[in-house]
């Protein structure tokens, strides 16, 4: 019998601070009690899922991007590279050529179009991918190097690296970066299902709409989790109804949860209401998986 491919769920949110990480770490804990589960933290600028798993020690390895390196001896100072680069990452200044690593998109144009092979591509550290395993749970953390500004290449690399490594896992959860711009699109790309975490406020609704608009373009099935439910704003639910987006959990607004979260604690054990809401999410995921198998 062949094992089915892993089922991939991305957890995203338009607005930052809605509780995306909260949902991701709790779901990972819960799913891993009955199936193998890999949690991938793709919030590469600020990955902090690992704070909630202090007992798991990440084993990290470096991830590289390719950037050109100037070879002075071969260069004839023709200036083609400087003209070719759309990102101002390669510049000829007088009789030298400078490469600005942070600006380079690794398109290879300057390197391969150089008539004298004077800009061979070299490895440059982009960030790290850390992996930790504990029973059925695997934690993967993708972390951008400080000063590196492009999140998308690292997210794509992480996806590619994981293809071979986590094929045997039942579920993969991606904790996506916040916002609605290109890193989110890259992070959610392999997902079979996207869970959007929002909050019942006008800000939450506005950013949810933007996130839905972004993800509709990718034709991903989506479901909504409302966090901090109960502060009395119903427009989010109305919107979901009109847009036919299933609301699969409503996590109560509670100071206790906020406190525990601030301390970096997992809170399900002490909170039956939260537990039952998260169970709804897990049931929905399993159902969705079976329906689409």
């Amino acid at each position, binding site marked *: 019998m062949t094992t089915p491919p892993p089922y991939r769920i991305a957890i995203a949110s338009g607005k930052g601070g*809605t509780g995306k990480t909260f949902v991701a770490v709790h779901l990972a804990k819960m799913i891993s009690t009955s199936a193998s589960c890999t949690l991938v933290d793709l919030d590469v600028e600020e990955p902090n899922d690992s*704070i909630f798993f202090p007992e798991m020690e990440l084993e990290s390895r470096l991830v590289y991007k390719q950037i050109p390196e100037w070879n002075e001896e071969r260069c004839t100072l023709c200036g083609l590279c400087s003209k070719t680069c759309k990102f101002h990452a390669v510049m000829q200044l007088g009789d030298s050529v400078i490469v600005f690593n942070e600006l380079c998109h690794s398109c290879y144009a300057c390197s391969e*179009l150089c008539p004298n092979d004077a800009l061979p591509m070299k490895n440059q550290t982009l960030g790290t991918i850390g992996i930790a395993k504990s029973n059925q749970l695997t934690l993967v953390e993708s972390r951008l190097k400080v000063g590196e500004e492009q999140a998308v290449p690292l997210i794509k690399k992480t996806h590619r690296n994981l293809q071979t490594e986590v094929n045997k896992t039942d579920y993969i959860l991606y904790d996506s970066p916040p*916002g609605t711009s290109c890193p989110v699109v890259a992070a959610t790309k392999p997902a079979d299902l996207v869970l959007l975490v929002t*909050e019942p406020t*006008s800000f939450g609704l506005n950013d949810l709409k933007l996130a839905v608009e972004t993800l509709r*373009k990718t034709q991903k099935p989506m479901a909504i989790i409302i966090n901090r439910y109960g502060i009395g704003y119903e427009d989010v639910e109305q919107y979901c109804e009109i847009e036919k987006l299933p609301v699969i959990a409503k996590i109560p607004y509670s100071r206790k949860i906020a406190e525990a979260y601030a301390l970096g604690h997992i809170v399900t054990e002490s909170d039956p209401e939260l537990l039952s809401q998260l169970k709804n999410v897990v049931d929905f995921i399993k159902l969705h998986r079976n329906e689409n198998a």
Partner: protein
Amino acid sequence: MREIVILSGKGGTGKTLVSASLAAVGAKEAILADCDVDAANIHLLLQTKAVKTEVFYSGELANINQDDCISCGRCMEVCRFDAIGLSNQQYKIEDAECEGCGYCEKVCPAQAITLKPRRSGIVYVSDSRLKMPVAHARLDPGADNSGKLVAKVKDEARKLARAENKEYVIIDGAPGIGCPVVSSLAGAKYVLFVTEPTQSALHDLKRLHTLLQKFKPVTGCIINKNDLNAEMTQEIKLFLKENRIELVAELPYSDLFAKSMIGQLTVAEADKQMFTEFEKIWKKIKERLS
């Protein structure tokens, strides 16, 4: 003209509500710029009405002219972004993947590829409920959030401030710690951090502070939800002291923030005590700038 930038790094600390509340107390002497373009929200609180809109382009996008294409496939070979696909014997650019590097344009033997400007959002100049003009923007879904859009919003705000003779520009800065943040910082006289007592918020605060070393603006900090984790709050205070960042205010955890959003008001307008609190904050900032 003096620019005050409000930053938080991590989302959800209350940065936008602080920016809007400062605008509410300082409406007579300030212009507001919402540079949080990836998830712009201030316009909701201030019920803005656009008086000027401008489509915004950033970077470029490759385009294949099918009439000229000889289907040699050279473009697909060189593209490192998997942005060129072959369907029904036609080579096509996938807009979302294309980074506009122009390599395909350079190697196309039939000159069938051109680069055109990429639409990335809309910039607005609006009137608001506070009788104060607001400059803001909306990034297109999935577009690249560049420093250029942030710079454009700030430019519009500066123009407004000059035209209306206002002394201050209040800037709701970009989230995170990347390129858009650097853009929102350019020209800042005062940077106000809004943080909360969590590990990740403090971590971001430290990284933002490192980023500021080169700009050297006056800095202040508001600790929001200060009673959620007393130990962490102490740690933040220590950090502020060591780095000579003024602790401008501490605000307790309160559902007032969420409630005021629902009433579509700023916190300062929703609650008398908060209004006084924000008047004090505004006064402190102005004093440090004079």
